[in-house]
C-alpha cells in the first residue's frame, strides 16, 4: 500500500505513527488557498479568515496535519479558503464529521467552522455532544444572529422581537446564549470575541489552538447585509470602551472608561455591575478560568442578556479533562498489549468449533 510521504497508517489501526514533514517556517500566505473569497464586501467573515490565517504559521503544525470542517451557511465556506485539508459538509453536521476525523486520526488538528443557525439550530445536538465528549476540536461559531445564506430569517440567537422575513411581526422566541450553552454542555474551553478585535481575536484563537480537547469560541460577526449593526453596542466608538468587559484570568473584572466599572458578586450570589469607586477593587470578582466548577463562568456568561449592554469577552473557562480520542487510543493500546495484536484466524475460529471429516 502506498502512503503519503512521511506518514504511515498502521494497519492495526493505531493511527499515524510518525510525524510528517518538517515544519519549515510557514507564512500566512501558505495558508491562503487559490480560491476566490466570495463573502459580501464588508462581511465580518473576512477579518476572521485573516486572523485565522495569520495565527496558523505560529502553531508549528504542518499544513497537511490541519483539517477545517464546516457545515452549511456563509461561515461554512471557510475551508475552501484555507490551504489545508478541508471538508465542506452538510447543514449542522460538521461536529460529527470532525469527531470522526479527530478520533480516527489524533495526529491531526481539526477545526470546525460553524454559524448560529448551523451549529445551534440544525446541528445543536452534535454541537453539545462534541463538547461533552471533549473531542479534540477547535470550534469557531460565527454568531451574526441571522440566517445569511438563506437571505435573512431569524436564527436561534436572534433577539426577541427581531423583525425578519420569517418574523414580520417580530420573533417571539427566547434566544440561546452560546457561551452558557457550551458551559452547560460541559465544554472545557469556552471563549468569546469579536470579528473586529484585531488583537483579542488572534489571542483567543491561539489559546484555543493550544487547548487539548474541545475549544469553543463564539465570535460575534457582523452581517452587514441582513443584520448590520447587531453588535454596535460593542463596536461603536462609544460602546467599545463602555461595554466591552475583557476577562483576564487572575484579575478583577473591570471595564468602562478608566476601568471605573466592575463586576462583583452580591450577597445572594448574583453578579452585578458596580462602580469601583463604591466597592473598592477588593470587592470585585476575580476571574478564575481554571475553576473546576463552571458556575461562576456561567454567571459571567449570563451577565448580559445580549450584546447590547456590558458584555464579557475573553476566555470564560479553560480546564483540563481527558480528551475523548486519548481515551479511545488508550483502550486500543492496552487491548493490543493484553491480548496481543488481532489474529483474524483465531477470531474466526473462536468459541465452540467442531470438525467434520
Amino acid at each position: 500500500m502506498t502512503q503519503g510521504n512521511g506518514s504511515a497508517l498502521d494497519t492495526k489501526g493505531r493511527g499515524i505513527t510518525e510525524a510528517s514533514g518538517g515544519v519549515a517556517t510557514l507564512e500566512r500566505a501558505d495558508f491562503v488557498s487559490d480560491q476566490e473569497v466570495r463573502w459580501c464586501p464588508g462581511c465580518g467573515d473576512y477579518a476572521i479568515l485573516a486572523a485565522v490565517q495569520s495565527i496558523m504559521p505560529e502553531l508549528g503544525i504542518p499544513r497537511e496535519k490541519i483539517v477545517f470542517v464546516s457545515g452549511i451557511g456563509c461561515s461554512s465556506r471557510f475551508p475552501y479558503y484555507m490551504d489545508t485539508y478541508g471538508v465542506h459538509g452538510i447543514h449542522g453536521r460538521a461536529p460529527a464529521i470532525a469527531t470522526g476525523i479527530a478520533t480516527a486520526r489524533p495526529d491531526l488538528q481539526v477545526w470546525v467552522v460553524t454559524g448560529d443557525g448551523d451549529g445551534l439550530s440544525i446541528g445543536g445536538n452534535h454541537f453539545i455532544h462534541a463538547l461533552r465528549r471533549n473531542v479534540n476540536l477547535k470550534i469557531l461559531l460565527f454568531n451574526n444572529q441571522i440566517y445569511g445564506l438563506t437571505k435573512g430569517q431569524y436564527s436561534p440567537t436572534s433577539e426577541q422581537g427581531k423583525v425578519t422575513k420569517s418574523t414580520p411581526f417580530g420573533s417571539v422566541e427566547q434566544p440561546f446564549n452560546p457561551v452558557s450553552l457550551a458551559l452547560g454542555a460541559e465544554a472545557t474551553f469556552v471563549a468569546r470575541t469579536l470579528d473586529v478585535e484585531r488583537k483579542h481575536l488572534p489571542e483567543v484563537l491561539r489559546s484555543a489552538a493550544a487547548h487539548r480537547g474541545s475549544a469553543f469560541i463564539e465570535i460575534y460577526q457582523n452581517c452587514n447585509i441582513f443584520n448590520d449593526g447587531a453588535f454596535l453596542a460593542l463596536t461603536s466608538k462609544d460602546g467599545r470602551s463602555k461595554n466591552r468587559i475583557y476577562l483576564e484570568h487572575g484579575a478583577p473584572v473591570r471595564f468602562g472608561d478608566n476601568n471605573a466599572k466592575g463586576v462583583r458578586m452580591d450577597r445572594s450570589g448574583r453578579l452585578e455591575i458596580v462602580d469601583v469607586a463604591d466597592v473598592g477593587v477588593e470587592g470585585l470578582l476575580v476571574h478564575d478560568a481554571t475553576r473546576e466548577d463552571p458556575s461562576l463562568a456561567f454567571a459571567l456568561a449570563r451577565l448580559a442578556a445580549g450584546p447590547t449592554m456590558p458584555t464579557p469577552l475573553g476566555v470564560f473557562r479553560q480546564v483540563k479533562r481527558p480528551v475523548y480520542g486519548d481515551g479511545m487510543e488508550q483502550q486500543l493500546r492496552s487491548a493490543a498489549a493484553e491480548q496481543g495484536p488481532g489474529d483474524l484466524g483465531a477470531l474466526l475460529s473462536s468459541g465452540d468449533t467442531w470438525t467434520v471429516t
Partner: protein
Amino acid sequence: MSGQIAPPEQAGTDRQEVPHVVVRFAGDSGDGMQLTGDRFTSVSAAFGNDLSTMPDFPAEIRAPAGTLAGVSAFQIHFSDHDILTPGDEPGVLVAMNPAALKANIKDVMRGGMLILNSDSFDERNLDKAGYAADPLGDGSLDDYQLCKIPMTSMTMDAVKPTGVGKKEAERSKNMFALGVLSWMYSRPVEPTIEYLEKKFATKPALAAANVAALKAGHAFGETAELSAFEVKPASLAPGVYRRITGNQALAFGLIAASVQAQLPLFLGSYPITPASDILHELSRYKNFGVRTLQAEDEIAAIGMALGAAFSGHLGVTTSSGPGLDLKAETLGLAVSLELPLIVVNIQRGGPSTGLPTKTEQADLLHAMYGRHGEAPLPIVSSYSPSSCFWAAIEAARIAVKYMTPVILLSDGFIANGAEPWLIPKLADLPDISTSFASQPNAGEDYWPYLRDDDTLARPWAIPGTPGLEHRIGGLEKADVTGNISYDPENHQLMTELRAAKIKGIEEDIAPLEVEGPDDARVLVLGWGGTYGQIGEACGRLNAGGHRVARAHLRHLNPLPKNTEGVLRRFNKIVVPELNMGQLSRLIQAEFLIEVISINQVKGLPFRAAELEERLKELI
C-alpha cells in the same frame, strides 16, 4: 470444546431414527427460552447436525409475565442432511406457560408433540393468556401428542439440596426442559454442564441448581419413557465448523475486510434493533484496532464514519430502517465526496417504528432511491447468516476500489438466525487493499477528482500527506479539479460520471447463477433472506416432478451483467419478496420484462410449504 461429540450411551432405549426435526422453545420472556434454544443448538451443532435457527423476541423487554405480549420463542431445525431454513412448522413445541402455548400452537404441525409445563396451567395464567377453558382438558389439543410435565414442581424438588432461594429454583426450569429434550434427541448434557459451571463460576449454588434441573429433566425423560429419537449427523463438507449468527458474521466480515484492506476499521453507530449486536460485537475487538463510537444519533453516526473515511479509515455505520431514513442526507454527501463508506441496514418491518423485532425486505427501493438528486450507489445483499461475512467483505471491496458509499442490506431474520459455518481459510479471503495518493497528479497540483480511467474512481489523498492538501464538499465540483462549479455542462457531466462509475461495477461482480433443471421454463428470482425458503420450495417442486429454476441476487445495484440474459431464457419469472414488490419493480423498469410477484409482509419469513403451493399455482 472442539471435535465431534459422540452420542451418549443410552442402552436399552429403542431410538427411532428421523431425518430432521423442528423444535420450538416458547415461554415468558423471563423464562430463559433464548438461552435454552441456544444451548440445544450448540450441542446439536457439535453433534454434527446441520441446523438453522430463528429466535422470535417480543418488542418489549419485559412485557407482563404470563401474557401473550411477553412470549419469547426460539426455533431450531436440525437434520442429518443439508437444510436451508429454520423450518415452517415445529414438530415439537415446548411451552412453559399457557400464553406460550396460545401464541405458538397455530404454527405447530398437526400431530406434533406439545411438551407443556402443566404446573403453569392454573386459573391465573390461563386467564392472563386469554383462555376461557383449560386447553389441557377441553379436547382442543386432541390433534396433538400431549406431554404434560409438572416442570416447575419437579425442578423445585430437584434443586432443593443446592439451597438456592425459591425464585432462583423456579427459574432453573428452563434447564429441566432442556434436559427433557436432550434425552428425547440423544443430545449430551455434559457440554451444557460445563457451560453452566463457567457461566455461574462466581455463584456456585446457582450453577448447582441449574445443573440439577438439567439432570433431573434428562432423568425424567428416561424414567417416564418418553419417545426417543435420533437425528444422525449430517454429511457436511469436511473442515472446521462453528455456529454463527448473521450479525456476528457481519461483524467478523467487517474486521476481515479491515485486515484485507489494510485499513483500520471505524464504526459510528447508534443503538437500534436489530442492528445493535454488530456494535456490541465490534466494540470487543479493540486489539484489532477497531474504533467504535456510539454516536449521539444516527446522523452523527454516519457523519463520524464519513469523517473517518476522509482520514483514511474503513468507515462503517450500522443501523436499521428508521436509522437509514436519518442517514440519507449524509449518504448523499458521501456520493458527492466519493469516499468509501459502508452503510449496513438490518431491515425490519416498517413504516415508522413498525415491527422492530420482525423481519422484512422493504428497504430495497429506499436503498436504491432514498436520497435527493441523482445519487446512485452500489447495493450488496446477504442472504443467509454466514453469507453476511462475505457480503461485508464484498461491500468493503467495492467501496475502496470505486471510492463510493455502499449499502449492505441484511434483515432481522438473517441477523438473528444462526447456522453452522465452515470457517474459511485466511488464504481464501480476497486481497482488497488499495493505495492512498502520495504525489501530486497534475504537475505541482493535486486534483482530487482526476479519475482512474478504468474504474472512474477518484484518488484518495488523506490528511497528513504533504502537498496534497485539498478541500472537498457537497457543492457540485468541477470535473477533475474538484473546485466548486455551477456550470450547467459540468453538472451534467459529473452526474453522468457518477452514474457510469457505479454502473461500471457490473464488470467486476460475480454473474447471476441459475440452479435447477436445464429445461426449466420458470425462474424464481430472489434476493436477501428468502434464499433458504425459495431453495426449499423449488427443491420440493423439482423432486415432485416439476421443473423450476432459481437464481438469487447478491448485488442489487448494479445488477450482474448477465441478469437480462438469464431472465430472457425463461418463459416466466416469479419474484417472491417480503415486501409489496420492490425487486419486481426494479426488474420490470430495467428490462421491460414481465414478472409475477409473490409478496408477504407479516414480519415473518415465507413458509417454504406455502411458497411451494403458490409457485405450483403459477407454473
